[in-house]
């Protein structure tokens, strides 16, 4: 008997078509699947992730930073921190990698449609949120107000500068940026302070939906600042864990009884408030 089973561990080759340096440590990588039909049929949600494999170096999960409204390619923005990311940073345009996915639930578009939205991003947290922001901007009439709060450690770490500028110029977006500190030699005329200091600067009513992503340490401070201002079922957090398999098998990304790769990476605050080890 020949059983044909879909193999969720099998990567599909994709070619790197463009690399744009973002900061000293981060690069933006654009990919296309080798087969045209595969690329055309590839669909995902903002907030989902892919497993990227560089044979011999290994595989790692990355948030998709492009928006699914752009069908011709998909993008990652990656900081050089380890083996796979190091190999990826050495990659040249035209070279190939393996891709599996998309995995995870993504941002809750149904909960976001028609609502006023506040996006809070810390550091690399902007990477998955950029997918959502550009998705919203491509379908602008489907969503309410869009306010974006974005903080990095220092000015030179700001990502997607051209897009930040474009968002800032739009009348239907309110963008506030801050940096934790301005080390000598860097120019900055904007806000200084952690991202939570921006929260009191924006006007929000109780029915705003918040979407938050940042380093693990950031969440409790942001949540403390939002406490009582917004509904707990309308605060969404995208959590980072070590998703080795992406399909709920390897156990690495478990948070209590949840698997980040299956049940997340996006959770509502209500859902994880009492979850042991979540935030």
């Amino acid at each position: 008997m020949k059983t044909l089973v879909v193999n969720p561990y099998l990567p599909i080759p994709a070619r790197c078509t463009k690399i744009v340096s973002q900061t000293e440590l981060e690069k933006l990588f654009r990919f296309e699947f080798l087969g045209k039909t595969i690329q055309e049929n590839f669909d995902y949600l903002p907030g989902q992730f892919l497993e990227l494999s560089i044979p011999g170096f290994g595989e790692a999960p990355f948030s998709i930073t492009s928006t699914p409204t752009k069908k011709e390619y998909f993008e990652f923005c990656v900081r050089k921190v380890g083996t796979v990311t190091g190999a990826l940073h050495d990659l040249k345009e035209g070279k190939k990698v393996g891709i599996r996915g998309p995995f995870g639930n993504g941002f809750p578009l149904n909960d976001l449609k028609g609502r006023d939205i506040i996006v809070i991003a810390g550091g690399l947290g902007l990477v998955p949120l950029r997918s959502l922001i550009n998705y919203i901007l491509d379908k602008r009439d489907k969503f309410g107000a869009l306010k974006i709060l974005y903080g990095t450690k220092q000015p030179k770490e700001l990502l997607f500068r051209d897009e930040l500028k474009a968002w800032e110029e739009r009348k239907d977006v309110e963008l506030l940026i801050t940096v934790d500190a301005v080390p000598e030699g860097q120019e900055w005329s904007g806000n200084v302070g952690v991202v939570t200091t921006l929260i009191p600067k924006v006007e929000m009513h109780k029915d705003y939906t918040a979407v938050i992503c940042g380093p693990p340490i950031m969440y409790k401070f942001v949540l403390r600042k939002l406490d009582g201002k917004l509904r707990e079922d309308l605060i969404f957090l995208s959590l980072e864990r070590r998703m080795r398999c992406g399909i709920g098998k390897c156990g690495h990304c478990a948070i209590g009884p949840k698997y980040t790769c299956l049940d997340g990476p996006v959770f509502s605050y209500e859902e994880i408030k009492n979850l042991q080890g979540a935030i």
Partner: protein
Amino acid sequence: MPLIKKQKIPLLVDKMLKKFDVIGPVPKDEKYVFSKVSRGEEVFLGYDTSILPPKKIFFPQEETLITFKKDEQLEFKPALEDGTPSKTDGDRKFVIFGVHACDIHAILTLDKQFMEVYPDPYYISKRARSLIIGVSCREPKETCFCGIMGTYTVEKGFDLFLEQIDEDEFYVIVGSDEGRKLLSAYPDFFEASTEETLEKLRKVLKEKDEKFADSVSITGLPTLLEQEFDSVNGEIWEELGEKCLGCGTCCLVCPTCFCFNVVDKVELSGKEGLTKRVWDSCLLADFAVIAGGFNFRPTQTSRIRYRIYHKLKYELERGGILGCVGCGRCNIACPAGIKMQDVIKKIKGE
């Protein structure tokens, strides 16, 4: 229901070997291992526990998932031809002969983990070719705590189950159509049960409850754990964290532990290689480390607490199925002398 005489079992296995591979408990250095046998008499049904559980048959310690070619030739292939994993043993079905009730419970837990949501083709290809013949335990080993977990009997997850009713007789419980087919394929080895054998069976099962059942049970454990996470008896976790060496051996011998890591190996040519999975343990320091080095479970206390919660609470919440079956292998293997049943009793305040 039929009956089989003890002396006929090796002959039955010999006969089965003509059609199936047979894996059974065999003695090794005063302990027992599940191993492929070539003669029926090698299977030793009186074993107490095996060093490693039958898990290793479906989910081996190391398993190639993908073979690849690198760089411009980039190509990924499943480690098997038709989209399923490589069939190292061919298409032949195999019988695991002599699995204890606790280990059958554990296989059900693994089935849940590997066969649902994203079905795992590597696990399934082996599981689908397996037949499971269970055998009863007559005495709990001192390290066993199936009495607490309620796993010394089992109702499903086997094709046949041999319940020993006296020194030389086993009552045969049929658990599946495949099991029924086995009975009709080997009619010479079985005989019909009588009212007398049924009486013996009832007696044995009753005695079993007396021998195995523990005054402590897991009822209410998840609720207690809900409260014990941070404080109240928080010192339970501190104590365990102090004691645990973080070696991960308990996970390696555990019949339900399924965590794995994924690694690439490149051939000497540098042009091709393979991706494989290897058993991993949540007790190892870097298990929950993310890129950049942040560790979500930075202390041994947080790691052992997680493991115990996973076994006794989270797995139940996820799949309604036990994450621990009380086989006691962790108790035997732990170099620090941590005993799961002591942990359970402590949480229950007994």
